[in-house]
């Protein structure tokens, strides 16, 4: 890991932010929210892997913690949606 790599990641994060702000003006409706969430997730993964050093993490337990959190949230959100949508 070098300082230059951190700066590249930072530039990538800013570029992704610029893309998502520009996209918002295009008004592409329902697809928009999916694109916005994909970009936000990509930015988060960059921060997790590079800034929070999960990429170079050797312990399996720590590598798995975030996927576990995301899976838990996905179950919460998924089950709540099925409840709301079938009422």
């Amino acid at each position, binding site marked *: 890991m070098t300082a230059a790599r951190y700066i590249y990641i930072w530039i990538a994060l800013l570029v992704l932010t610029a893309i998502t702000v520009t996209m918002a003006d295009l008004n592409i409706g329902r697809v928009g929210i999916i694109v916005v969430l994909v970009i936000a997730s990509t930015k988060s993964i960059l921060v997790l892997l590079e800034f*929070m050093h999960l990429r170079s993490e050797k312990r399996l337990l720590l590598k798995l*913690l975030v996927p*576990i959190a995301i899976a838990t949230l996905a179950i919460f959100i998924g089950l709540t949606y099925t409840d709301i949508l079938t009422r």
Partner: protein
Amino acid sequence: MESEAREHKVFSRVGMWLFLLSEILIFGGLFLVYAMYRAKHPVDFHAASGELSRFDGTLNTAILLTSSLTAVLAIYSLQVLNKARRAAWYLVATIGFGFAFLVVKAFEWAAKFQHGLYPRAAEMATRPNGEILYFGLYFTMTGLHALHVIIGMVVLAVLLSWVIRKKATQQNSAALENAGLYWHLVDIIWIFLFPLFYLIS
């Protein structure tokens, strides 16, 4: 002794990540509430989002992303380069960016209050239910996030004093690393708050 110290470092990191997990679930619950109410009131959420300043939101996103860069460079300076002075300056920059974020946030909130857009305001009562819910969530979620920024700044300030007093060093950098993890998590939460509140109009 050596391996014991290393074990200690790993455990402290595991503990920090478990704490971050609980933070993810706290905000996750709020995002769930947001998703449900937005599904129920898509038009109102759309209209209310137009009241927010997209410029302020974008500016704050850039500020917070940059603060994450300076935070990680502070850790890098201490852990890899063993340059305590440089690490200290990067921490000062990180705290400064955190403060800048809060200043922008304060101006934004002040503008909302001026327009009567806050919970239980007279103006709010004239709005449709979905907009009331939107602003309720806006203040709750950005408020809780701002509280996290303040806590992060306090933690970083403590670490700054440790670096200066040689309490946090190249050999003993676990605390600084954990403080960095917390700061990055606060950044990640904002990465989701920003598009969901500012970019849906």
